[in-house]
């Protein structure tokens, strides 16, 4: 049964590595929901987090295929029960109608979001949470009018002593 899972891995921080990783996903037909990359404490490495929908056989395949890449140093499929996963999203909301403005401010507030910018007709809000929470925010806010949005993709860390 296909489920949404998170795989985290450390790669060499070298040109072309992001290309090779995404090329692997494309070539093997794995479906990525999101991918995020960033530096870590060691400047020679980067950490990538992908969120994929797949059954467990395919998930094992993905882990094994990533592990096989020379540029990939460590791979782990994160256990959802022992993982904190977050995503950030920016929203531009049409607030030319004062009612809409009020309502969107309330939504943002309910989701512990931040207002980053206010123009006469638009505001930009930041919402952070697990991906499901962000989906929920989108659903609630859509009727008001989301002009534009940008999501970062999931990033995640395991709890306690667990480590990549």
């Amino acid at each position: 049964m296909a489920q949404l899972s998170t795989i985290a891995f450390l790669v060499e921080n070298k040109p072309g590595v992001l290309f090779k990783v995404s090329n692997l996903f494309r070539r093997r037909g794995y479906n990525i929901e999101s991918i995020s990359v960033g530096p870590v404490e060691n400047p020679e490495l980067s950490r990538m987090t992908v969120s994929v929908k797949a059954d467990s056989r395919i998930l094992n395949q993905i882990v094994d295929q990533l592990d096989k890449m020379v540029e990939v140093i460590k791979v782990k499929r994160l256990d959802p029960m022992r993982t904190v996963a977050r995503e950030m999203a920016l929203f531009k909301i049409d607030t030319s109608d004062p009612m809409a403005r009020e309502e969107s401010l309330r939504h943002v507030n309910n989701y512990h979001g931040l207002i980053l910018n206010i123009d006469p007709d638009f505001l930009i809000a930041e919402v952070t949470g697990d991906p499901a929470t962000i989906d929920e925010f989108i659903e609630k806010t859509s009727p008001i009018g989301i002009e534009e949005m940008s999501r970062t993709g999931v990033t995640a860390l395991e709890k306690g002593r667990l480590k990549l």
Partner: protein
Amino acid sequence: MVEMSGARAFVESLERQKAEIIFGVSGGAILPICDELWNSDLRFIMARHEQGAAHMADGFARASGRVGVCLATSGPGATNLVTGIATANIDSSPVVAFTGQVPLNMIGTDAFQEVDIIGVSASITKFNLQVRRPSEIPQAVKSAFYVASTGRHGCVLVDLPKDVQIAVEEIEFPEEVSFRGYNINLEPDGREMDWATTLLSNAKRPVIMAGGGVIASNASAELVKMAELLVAPVTTTLMGKGAMPCDHQLFAGQCGMHGTGEANLLVSEADVLLVVGARFSDRTTAKLEEFSPGAKVIHIDIDRSEVDKNIETVTRVIGDAKLALEGILSRMANTRFDTSRNGEWLKKLEKFRKQYAPPELSGNPHMRAPEVMRALRRALPREALVTTEVGQCQMWSALYFDAYAPRTFFSSGGLGTMGWGFPAAIGAKAARPDVPVVDIAGDGSFCMTENNLATCVEENLPVVVVVLNNRMLGMVAQWQRLFYGRRYFGVELGNSPDFVKLAEAYGAEGVRPETIDEFERAVRRAVKDDVTMVIDVQIDPEENVFPMVPPGKGLKDLLVEA
């Protein structure tokens, strides 16, 4: 540390790897390297097309067990390598390809003969990299050889921008290379081997399937020991041919779409299937759901990602095939098990073997391909090397030409690349000039890389090409005959070229035997005189390769006639 150019560092790095031969075609973006090779003892074997150079390196690697090296210029030179790289990589052949590239400051500008070969080759190499300064070259070359020839072997490409070849820098040659993300684990896990031992020692109808991994890890002796100990019939995949001598009593032949009756039926009825260094390709398994339905599958492989990819296993042993077989054998020595019950099982092997013995052929004016294969075997010494092209000729070779030792039979398995066999034979001859090398070809395949006859002649690398000439792209025609109502399309080759004249045009010998005896004599003479000879064997364009499992069917559903 010494100051030298990138090109000099490149050539010295190859020498330090103990490379002796480079197969290639020159060009603008590798001129600095050519100029250093001019000054070096490395042998440069010039192909007439870069695809040929890559296949030669591949053939060299398979025949010798060492890394094969090919070299091409940027742009079209690099893209011409692509088929060769993909072919070597999917068959786990240790090949390193070097390509020239436009100077660093021109990369990304669509400069003359610029192709993003790193991007192009990413999914058909085990690893690839581009160097950005001369001092990176020794490390890059050493890494390329290391990655290509360790773990599951494969193809590595190194892209060398021209200005990096020219620039001079302090150069250091590393003694060792390592990658944080590349750890090869050869040692199999003891517990995994324990489980495998338990399963095997309780097997009533054991079958062993051996793939190319057995040959890559030089585990043939252990394979034979295991088979004899278990009294288990052995089948090979196309890549595994030669891992078990074809005249061994327990050898059941090839399994798969064109498997022998005994191999396909025994695999279908096995209760324990030990698969060593094979990857369950669709040509071997036929319909997955019907593959060895009653068997507990034990999979020995060095590549973890192959386990459970196509077939669910009960036990896997991850590691080097030789070490794994040794480990299991030593455990078996301390395990009591009863193989007397395997008598019945062996009788089955005999029964199927008789039942599916290829019919004696007569009453056809043409020479028949199986007969030609047997005659070729008679005419060649046991240690001769054979490569094949692709199509019917390949399957006739696999079914009817007996191989007696590992690294004596080579074929493009994973990609099925027409035109592979001939240049691969040239590479094999370069590796083993002491033994005869024969390419078993179809007329269509041979035409794809026939221009390398010039290399045979000019470089004195004699190869015998047996063209099973049916004036057809025979395998495709066979499918059109069997499954498309004989609607021949894009398969009729006509009578061009005249292979005898073609050979002569290149300064090689060409003969067209009329009988099997004449054929055998021609082969013997070519071997004795060690000359390049093209033998044009006219066969029936209507001849089919059987047995055959029709597409979508299981291994058991063999067709033995049309």
